[in-house]
């Protein structure tokens, strides 16, 4: 390994904040991570003083909506990746529900081209290809072509496949190619995109709610198929305790399922929809405190593998409507680490689980570049200031999507630098 050209000094590790460390990087790769001051800084190396900052591996977000092509007024690949970098993400997987849908190589290639031009230092973009043509749930998408163009997974996210036979065949075909399938679990008949949980709040506000069973039924179907076929399925944005119970049982029986949840399910409940707040309208909907606790426990014991933002930016005027008319979605890239770090600070989530869910497991499941701070790993890391306090305002967000129920809330912790292969993606 060549001599280090970058040294990060006196940073703290999230799992051992009392022992400062120095990170040595050469040509975009990790050389060593050592106790601070135990190895001399090579002459000419760039030194980054990181006292008081937490050193984390770069985060991977396996579930974002970047809206380009087709809905650039909500977000572009350029603005979305800027927001991702600000949030500490070095790898970003973007969903296929663009317009046109990402169901052919030319769309994938366009996305990758835009990312390379707007963000040559990263974050890296990994498109998710459509599972079915046009996301219509009728015919399989050309998955080999999409894989060859650069897709890392397939999904019908946003428009789940209700036809179980077609979904089975899609799983089998994708597994031939060695590419994982991400499923949005929603029985379209039981839970038609309501955006609010079926419960006390929906009953009071006179809104049609989505029952947890509408999600859990599809989770159960997917777990059964995964076990039966022996193929992996990644379950997107799990929101409720019922789903967690089913996933835990399936994993115990050897089903190769993995699962994610999003930060908003961990910090907000259905009460956020009171007053018809469309910023809190998301699919699946925000649930109850009981569901929240089940999700936290599942992250801790590994039943839920991954945290993902489900970043879903919308223009302000699109959310400025009566609740029923508003689109589902929360803009989440830039608040994700702060709010999950707060869970760590409060003792509701361990730092080890946080790193596993944001860094290790997503990279393992989807074959993304991964930094374990071992020699030769890509120098993907972030420096996080756990003491910084900032208020979420439209002006504070780089994403075009200002649609978050956290607007006005003061958060603790902010990303100061996000390095992708040794280069800080936060610097122009």
């Amino acid at each position, binding site marked *: 390994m060549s001599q280090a050209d970058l040294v990060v000094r006196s940073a703290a590790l999230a799992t051992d904040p009392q022992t400062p460390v120095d990170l040595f990087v050469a040509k975009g790769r990790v050389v060593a991570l050592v106790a601070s001051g135990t190895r001399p800084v090579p002459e000419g190396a760039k030194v980054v003083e990181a006292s008081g900052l937490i050193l984390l591996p770069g985060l991977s977000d396996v579930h974002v909506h970047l809206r380009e092509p087709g809905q650039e007024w909500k977000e572009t690949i350029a603005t979305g990746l800027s927001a991702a970098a600000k949030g500490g993400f070095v790898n970003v997987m973007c969903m296929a529900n663009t317009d046109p849908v990402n169901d052919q190589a030319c769309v994938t290639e366009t996305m990758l081209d835009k990312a390379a031009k707007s963000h040559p230092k990263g974050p890296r973009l990994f498109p998710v290809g459509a599972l079915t043509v046009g996301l219509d749930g009728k015919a399989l998408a050309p998955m080999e072509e999409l894989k060859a163009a650069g897709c890392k997974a397939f999904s019908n996210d946003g428009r789940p496949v209700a036809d179980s036979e077609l979904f089975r065949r899609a799983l089998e075909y994708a597994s031939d190619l060695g590419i994982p399938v991400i499923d949005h679990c929603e029985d379209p008949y039981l839970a038609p995109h309501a955006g609010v949980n079926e419960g006390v709040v929906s009953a009071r*506000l*006179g809104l049609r709610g989505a029952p947890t069973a509408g999600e859990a039924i599809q989770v159960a179907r997917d777990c059964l198929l995964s076990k039966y076929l022996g193929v992996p399925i990644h379950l997107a944005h799990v929101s409720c305790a019922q789903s967690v119970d089913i996933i835990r049982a399936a994993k115990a029986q050897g089903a190769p399922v993995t699962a994610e949840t999003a930060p908003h399910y961990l910090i907000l409940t259905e009460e956020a929809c009171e007053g018809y707040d469309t910023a809190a309208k998301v699919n699946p909907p925000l649930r109850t405190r009981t569901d929240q606790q089940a999700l936290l426990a599942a992250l801790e014991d590994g039943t839920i593998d991954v945290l993902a933002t489900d970043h879903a930016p919308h223009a302000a005027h699109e959310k400025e409507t009566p609740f029923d008319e508003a689109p589902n979605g929360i803009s989440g890239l830039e608040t994700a680490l702060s709010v999950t770090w707060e869970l760590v600070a409060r003792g509701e989530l361990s730092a080890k689980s946080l790193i596993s869910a944001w860094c290790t497991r997503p990279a393992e499941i989807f074959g993304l570049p991964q930094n374990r701070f071992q020699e030769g790993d890509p120098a993907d890391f972030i420096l996080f200031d756990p003491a910084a306090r900032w208020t979420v305002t439209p002006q504070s967000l780089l994403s075009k999507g200002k649609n978050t129920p956290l607007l006005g809330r003061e958060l603790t912790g902010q990303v100061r630098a996000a390095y992708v292969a040794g280069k800080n993606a936060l610097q122009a």
Partner: protein
Amino acid sequence: MTWPHKDLLDVTQLSRADATEILRAAKSFQEINSRPVKKVPILKGKSVILFFAEPSTRTKTSFDVAGKRLSADTFSLAKSGSSLTKGESLKDTVLTLQAMKPDAIVMRHNMSGAAKFIAERLECAVINAGDGWHAHPTQALLDAFTLTERWGGVEGKTVLILGDIAHSRVARSNVHLLRLLGASVRLCAPKTLLPHAVSSWGVPVSSDLDEAVRGVDAVMCLRLQLERQQAGLLPDVREYSRRFCMTLPRLAKAAKGAVVLHPGPINRGWEIASDLADASESLILDQVASGVDVRMALLHLYLTRKERKE
């Protein structure tokens, strides 16, 4: 009394004193409606836009009559005749209306929360004439007024609300207002027409009408919409009427002198037997008359609020 509210969005905004004041005012306006010339100049120079994005006979006409009897100028706008059909957003439509400087907008809309949505964006008074499944405050107030007229008050009385509770703004508003005024409320409906979390409302719930009606002082029937059958919530209207149609024999199980109400429009033979609808126990037309009294009171309170403060 200085009226503290800019808008009437939901009865949950009202204190018991507020509700009592509205009923008291309604009583004072009742007299005007029995005069040979039913017009007073109280709201002369005021303008009220009746913006009904959903069909309505009773509520819209009632507000229109109420406004005109108080000498306000009323203007009607339906969704079909508005730019909403051209894709204009609700926000832009109501901002356009506000630019014409009305003193109040009375709005009915098919979406829950729509009245709150516009009230937060408009300077003029907004009166909710029904929003989705959420609230119908003026209906609840006129129902309470009707029962008060009959009984002298609702305190200590028991009212059964019967029918499609899940999709009913009338039920949601009446459950709250009747309890606020001291009445007990029961609900009766097939489970498919009850909200999943109805237990959080804190009132007894039953799917057995013969049991639920025992000892009640009033039965408030709700309208059954045919689309509930099409949505698979009911087998058919015939079966619904066998189980849940209010009839004279069923009313005989209620307290002596019990009455029936219905917000209309009624489907005779489905929700209420035709002979009961026309019987002396029926307050259906009293409700319509009360509607004008109550809406005159509301327009007066909300349109003269600023003058009162000054």
